[in-house]
């Protein structure tokens, strides 16, 4: 089974500070995704990537940047964190295509105070 590892697992940040969430996958999947999970909203796509060097905007990209320096690593960057970005963030990887199965990491719980 695909292994997707996120770090940190928990993070407390201050408003206006910079936050970087990291994700590593060992399954050699081309595609990687960042979702946030909020009660009443489910999982919403922030950014995704087709491979090293590629980043694409998802459905809610405002306030977030992404970086894919290698096949294995995909980071989510909050340059100026706000309390509205308090959430649980999930990274996922997949092979792509219509029947694409996503393999999720364990999640990062972020609190912005």
């Amino acid at each position, binding site marked *: 089974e695909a292994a997707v590892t996120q770090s940190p697992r928990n993070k407390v940040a201050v408003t206006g500070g910079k936050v970087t969430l990291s994700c590593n996958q060992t399954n050699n999947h081309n595609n990687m995704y960042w979702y946030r999970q909020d009660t009443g909203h489910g999982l919403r*796509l922030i950014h995704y990537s087709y491979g090293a060097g590629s980043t694409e905007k998802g459905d809610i990209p405002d306030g977030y940047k992404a970086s894919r320096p290698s096949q294995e690593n995909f980071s989510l960057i909050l340059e100026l964190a706000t309390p509205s970005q308090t959430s649980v963030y999930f990274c996922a990887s997949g092979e792509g295509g219509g029947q694409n199965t996503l393999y999720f990491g364990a999640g990062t719980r972020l609190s912005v105070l």
Partner: protein
Amino acid sequence: GDSVTQTEGLVTLTEGLPVMLNCTYQSTYSPFLFWYVQHLNEAPKLLLKSFTDNKRPEHQGFHATLHKSSSSFHLQKSSAQLSDSALYYCALSDLGGANTGKLTFGHGTILRVHP
């Protein structure tokens, strides 16, 4: 754009009773549909997904039938178990456009099964 609508909020059941979680969708093209399950403090993981040849997918006693005429993919199980208590997401993958493999998720339904 694509959207998924699920049974709202919380569904509470007695162990042994049948489970049905509703999922309807809107999509420009003919999508693949998925059910993901997330147990407490765990990552979401795939439960089952629709087939191209209209076979009914089944896993761990759960099954779902894709009805294109009604744009539905309801999740069913004949007899609920305590271990089925979890958050369930219905999702779709749009086969049109760039075929990115992105999934659009519903808001999720919490299933609680009690003795």
